[in-house]
């Protein structure tokens, strides 16, 4: 394995999460949203799994082992934000605050239920792709056991 990747892979996750956060926050005003953010984080996790092998990666990133729960939770969050209007008799995807009302913002982040939906989307995508990656890397020989293997 290339030493560069060996150094980069475990450290790329934090910047990836930052980038993802940026994508979500900016999402409504510029290109990109929760979906791309989720894929990027999942790719960073994937890189770690490929370089470290499944077992070591699992040890260093406990949350990945519960990726399926994260995915389901993300889906539920998205569903919740999407259907919250139903409680007040409105159709699905009636976001709050309603059109035309002012929005509370923290910096560029605007607190609308649409953003909440986006966060759920992010968690689902990141979670389910991590599940995919974990199962796939299980097929690969563990680099820790077999460091000489170069595919």
């Amino acid at each position: 394995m290339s030493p560069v990747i060996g150094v980069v892979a475990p450290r790329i996750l934090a910047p990836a999460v930052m980038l993802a956060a940026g994508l979500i926050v900016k999402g409504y005003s510029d290109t990109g949203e929760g979906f791309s953010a989720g894929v990027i984080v999942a790719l960073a996790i994937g890189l770690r799994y490929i370089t470290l092998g499944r077992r070591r990666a699992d040890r260093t990133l406990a949350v990945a082992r519960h990726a399926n729960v994260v995915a389901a939770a993300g889906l539920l969050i998205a569903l919740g934000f999407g259907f919250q209007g139903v409680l007040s008799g409105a159709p699905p995807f009636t976001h709050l605050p309603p059109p035309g009302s002012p929005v509370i913002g923290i910096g560029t982040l605007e607190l609308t239920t649409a953003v909440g939906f986006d966060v759920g989307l992010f968690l689902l995508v990141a979670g389910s792709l991590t599940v995919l990656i974990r199962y796939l890397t299980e097929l690969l020989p563990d680099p820790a056991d077999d460091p000489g293997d170069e595919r």
Partner: protein
Amino acid sequence: MTALSIALLIPWAAGVALLAVDGRRAWVPWISVGALAATLITLGAVAAQVLASGPVTMTTGNWPVGVGITLRADALGVTFALLSVAMLTAAVVHEAFDGVAEREFPALVLLLAAGLEGAFLTGDIFNFYVFFELALAASYVLALHGPGPRVLGAGLVFTAVNVVGTFVFLLSVAGVYRVTATLDMARIGERMAVADPNAAILIAVGFFVAFSVKLGLFPFHFWLPTVYTAARPAVAAILSGSVANIGAYGLLRFGAGLLPRELELAAGALIVLGGASILYGGVLAISRRSAGEMLAYSAIGQVGYVLVAIGIGGPVGFAAAIAYAIVNAANKTMLFLTTSQRGVVVGGLFALGALSIAGIPPAAGFVGKLEVFRAVVGDPVVAGVLLLGSLLSLVYAFEVYQVEHWRPAADATAVRVSWRAWVVPVALGGVILALGVWPEPLLALSDAAARVLPGANP
């Protein structure tokens, strides 16, 4: 309006919640059952409202039509939604009694229910496409539930063929959008009527191919027998009783609803294909040895009746197609659930199902046949094909019945099963018998559903 949203939300949320749970634990499938039952009740409320006072419509986020997605429950959509969810519920209760073998099963059926419901209750073609994909994705995974490596091969065939079918569908969706500049079905209907005929007919072919694949019409059916026989009985019941309804619904909604002019133009081709399906399915079913195989080919033949009725069209033809689809779904669900069982009760149910397939009273099948006859009565050749088709169905259904339930050898190896294994089929059998004895609800519902379509109100 809220009931419509809730009917969609219940199976969806419950399915998502069960995603992370191992469905083999005894209580999990009952959650699915509960959620599906709640869905059915809510749908029933929606149906009551729809039948009493016309379609329920809303757009997501209360945005104007065209911006938000139109959700629209009319009699046709509600009928198919109720039918599919009811059959799905039956299959899940059966499986819950039997003990679920696959951990994903309870979650998948709920998501399948959500997908089917969404597809039937949306008024937006792209939204239809995504719900269609959801239902299909769930059924791809469900189709892998079965014993041995054979199910994998069958699942591969099923997935590959249907994936190609949905891409064809997507091409047609893109074409519709380009031509009509909208995704709202009501507007599409208006604008397609004045669209260039060449573009419209080629788009219509795309839809037709996609739905025929789903229905398993000859010659798009080759995936079907392998899949229905390899899957678990409950899964085969779900595929033929619930998922296949998308095909019939799609032909009605997209053909008769959105592209009535093209449907009329293609009527001859539809009747020929439908007739070919009837004869092909019927002939192939005759030499089949086991109930599962027979039912798979029978399914091909039975959808032929639906297609012939759609091809003939008009209020009678569409109502006949809907009535036949309903009866066929009930038959197939009941029969597939009993394929691997023997015994007195199951024998009786099989006989009832065979009568229903052959269109002999007092089973409900005769009502469907009566309706289809009413549609084709003006055309002696088609009526002749249907007559031959019903003779064939009589032959294959009762041959297998006698081989499996009358032959002493079959009795000797009989697996006597507990009441849990037949309680659901008995309930379905009761429905089939009840609809045969008192067909009015079936006739009235399919009439109301057909009247939604423009071609049914000349």
